[in-house]
């Protein structure tokens, strides 16, 4: 079994984005049960987000000149990037609830949806935050009325005279019950129930009665004049939905390779609680099997987790939104722009030759951007000629990390630092790494060791 410290480290990455050096110093001595409690307490106390983004009024847009319209749309897109960078900053902040942000990241990938306007993106994120640790039934019903989702999956065009099946299909295939538990006929009937679920020009949900099909539907063996909420209820009344969601949660929080015994226990609990998400997550975190060796250090960090994690460890502050957007895009996970409605596939799919090289070089780029002035120049060769990377402006505060094990001799410092930063012991010894460190002062020696440890493939997993 893992030591309590290792359990806390594991939980901090799976239920969040790792710990800041200050948090680590304190929390590593707790019992892991109190740390679980702490995660949920913080989630309950999390601040509400406000949606102060202006509505992109389509009527107003129509009246603008082409140049004005272009500029307005451009500004709106920039706001989506701000929203994105702010979210990543929250994930990285020790003041915020890591668990809540991690749940939101999970659900954003689950209800994958491309949002192009800041108002709609922000609105959707607020809906996700509201339900992320709440009740899944209420969550699905809220997402079915989410304007960004309605537009993304063409429910705007789902009318009685000509139903558009896009939303109904994805609702079942990806959001709730999964393939194999419904027929093509069920999709057609469900699509009818969601006809008229639309949005107005201001970007609010609107039920268009004249486009809604009030007739009887025959869905999953039941007959009735169902509307969208009825359809969702019928789907969630089936236990297969609890199993499908439990599998997805297991893959995201526990292990890519399913253990059906655990999944089935999760699904029982989830179903019996009528889809209480917080209850399910707490159950996982308090289970012994969550801390089994096979589940530790075997997850490849997603790009956003990697970025938020190293921002947290290094107390990184970016001057603008560019670095967050650049890293997300280059590594294949831009928030609010998932690749398709199935979300990010994850796991080894994050890794190919080009994304791996950027991941390994990333910390060196940040150190260089922060002008830490090391004599490890070769690490920055790539940067000199890469315009995008040159544009990164960052501040790093290394002091908490350097004081993590204060006053220790080098070997102990190396071991303590590795225990904090890496999921497993590094293959390289301090002696082997030393020639690649800045020897000009003790502080620089230690700072460059931080950089090297965070450049190891071992840093890519949690």
């Amino acid at each position, binding site marked *: 079994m893992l030591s309590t410290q290792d359990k806390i480290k594991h939980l901090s990455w799976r239920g969040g984005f790792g710990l800041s050096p200050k948090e680590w110093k304190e929390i590593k001595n707790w019992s892991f049960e109190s740390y679980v409690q702490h995660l949920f307490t913080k989630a309950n106390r999390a601040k509400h987000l406000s949606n102060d983004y202006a509505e992109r009024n389509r009527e107003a847009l129509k009246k603008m000149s082409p140049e004005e319209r272009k500029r307005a749309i451009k500004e709106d897109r920039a706001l989506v990037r701000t929203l994105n960078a702010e979210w990543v900053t929250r994930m990285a902040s020790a003041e915020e609830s890591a668990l809540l942000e991690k749940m939101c990241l999970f659900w954003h990938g689950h209800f994958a949806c*491309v949002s192009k306007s800041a108002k709609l993106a922000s609105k959707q994120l607020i809906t996700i935050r509201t339900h992320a640790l709440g009740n899944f039934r209420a969550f699905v019903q809220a997402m079915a009325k989410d304007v960004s989702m309605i537009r*993304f*999956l*063409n429910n*705007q*065009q789902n*009318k009685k*005279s*000509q139903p*558009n*099946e*896009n939303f109904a*299909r994805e609702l079942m*295939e990806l959001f709730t019950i999964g*393939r194999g538990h419904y027929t093509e006929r069920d999709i057609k009937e469900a699509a009818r129930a969601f006809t008229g679920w639309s949005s107005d020009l201001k970007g609010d949900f609107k039920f268009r009665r004249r486009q809604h099909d009030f007739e009887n539907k025959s869905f999953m063996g039941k007959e009735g004049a169902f509307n969208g909420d009825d359809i969702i209820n019928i789907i969630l009344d089936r236990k297969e939905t609890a199993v499908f969601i439990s599998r997805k949660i297991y*893959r995201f929080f526990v292990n*890519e*390779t399913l253990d059906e015994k655990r999944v089935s226990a999760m699904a029982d609990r989830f179903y019996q609680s009528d889809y209480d998400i917080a209850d399910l997550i707490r159950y996982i975190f308090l289970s012994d099997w969550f801390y089994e060796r096979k589940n530790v*250090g*075997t*997850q*490849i960090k997603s790009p956003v987790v990697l970025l938020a994690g190293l921002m947290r460890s290094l107390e990184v502050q970016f001057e603008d939104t560019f670095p967050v957007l650049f890293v997300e895009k*280059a590594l*294949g996970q831009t928030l609010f722009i998932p*690749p*398709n*409605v*199935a979300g990010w*596939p*994850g*796991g*080894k*799919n994050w*890794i*190919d*030759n*080009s*994304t*791996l*090289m*950027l991941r*390994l*070089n990333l910390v060196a780029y940040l150190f260089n951007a922060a002008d830490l002035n090391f004599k*490890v120049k*070769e*690490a920055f*060769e*790539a940067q000199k*000629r*890469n315009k995008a990377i040159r544009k990164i402006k960052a501040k790093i505060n290394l002091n908490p990390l350097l004081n993590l094990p204060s006053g220790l001799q080098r070997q102990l410092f190396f071991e303590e630092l590795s225990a904090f930063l890496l999921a*497993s012991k590094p*293959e*390289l010894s301090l002696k082997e*790494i030393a020639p*690649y460190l800045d020897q000009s002062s003790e502080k620089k020696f230690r700072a460059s060791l931080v950089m090297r440890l965070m*450049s*190891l*493939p071992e840093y*890519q*997993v949690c």
Partner: protein
Amino acid sequence: MKRRRFLKASALASGSLMIPSFLKGYDLAGNIGNNSGRKLVIVQLSGGNDGLNTIIPFQNDIYYKNRPSLAIPANKVLRLSDELGFNPAMEALRPVFDQGQMCILNNVGYPNPDRSHFRSMDIWHTASGSKQYLQTGWIGRYLDNNCRTCDMPYHALELDDSLSLAMKGAKKSGFAMSNPKALKRTTDNRFLKLIAQKSGAHTDPLSYLYKTMIDTQSSADYLYEKSKVHRSRLSYPNTPFAKDLKQVAELLTADTATQIYYISLSGFDTHAFQQRTQTKLLQKYAEAMAAFIKDLRQNNLFDDTLIMTFSEFGRRVQQNASNGTDHGTANNLYLMSGKLRRAGFYNEAPNLLDLDKGDLKYGIDFRRVYATILERWLETDAKGIIGVGFEALKMI
């Protein structure tokens, strides 16, 4: 709505690299190490291109009845035969067709078609049946089977930031790169070379990270050298897709050891307001391909290059209420090369009188096209890669 890239099944993810059951016990011995010197370029139109509005049945009343606002008027169609013609946006490719260097296959699909993008794309990528879930791609398995002596991942190269499932095998995978210079910069690093020496006893997925890192370092050096050999002087359209094709042309001209190139153009998921979007995309596609083919011809490479263009499915015959089309089934597929045995239309036009709930029925299983390419172009045994029962066609 844009679905820009498609689900790559969490293939390989479990670490239990599954070998499709039909390959078990299959004798791979006779299958090693042939290189016909021929190159293959695969172009993927992501999102489900509307084939009926690309190759238009301009004599067909049913087509016009089903698409009151979307049909391309007969007088605008670029006629290729008595009944079929190009969308006007495809004009740049007309000379290629006229010169007998393009073969259009109609009604390509598979039994029990799946209308989900990712699932259908996975089916195309893995060459599986509709209810069969494979974790390796057909090109990946080609690398596994045929290329066991060839250790370099750049044998198959995808011009993208990430690698498609089609290119992932059980033991070998293709290589993803958006451009050789940028790639090279990221690997030139002494510390990374030190790490590479420590790739010993890791468990999955860490071992996978180490292996990928080491492969990348060696491939980057090679591709960078090759990319400097030849600069195309031809002018290509100013689009990312055309730039990718230009990169392919340059590598081909430099006689790079890469045999298979993979490139995508996305945005074809036209549920609403199709006309504008599709016109733009088809034009991008056709103009870039025309420049690419011209480049290949000038370097005497077109005879040894085969270009296959596909999309994961076609779209419904009837348009929807939003001036778009919903996910459909069978679709057309294009093969281009300087040396086709049979050009023009390979088979009959879609039969709009014989539909399956409003969708086209397939006439050619796409795995027969793969079998054709594997056997007749890459000269390898297709059975070990896509299984038995897929007879090769005769256009190459």
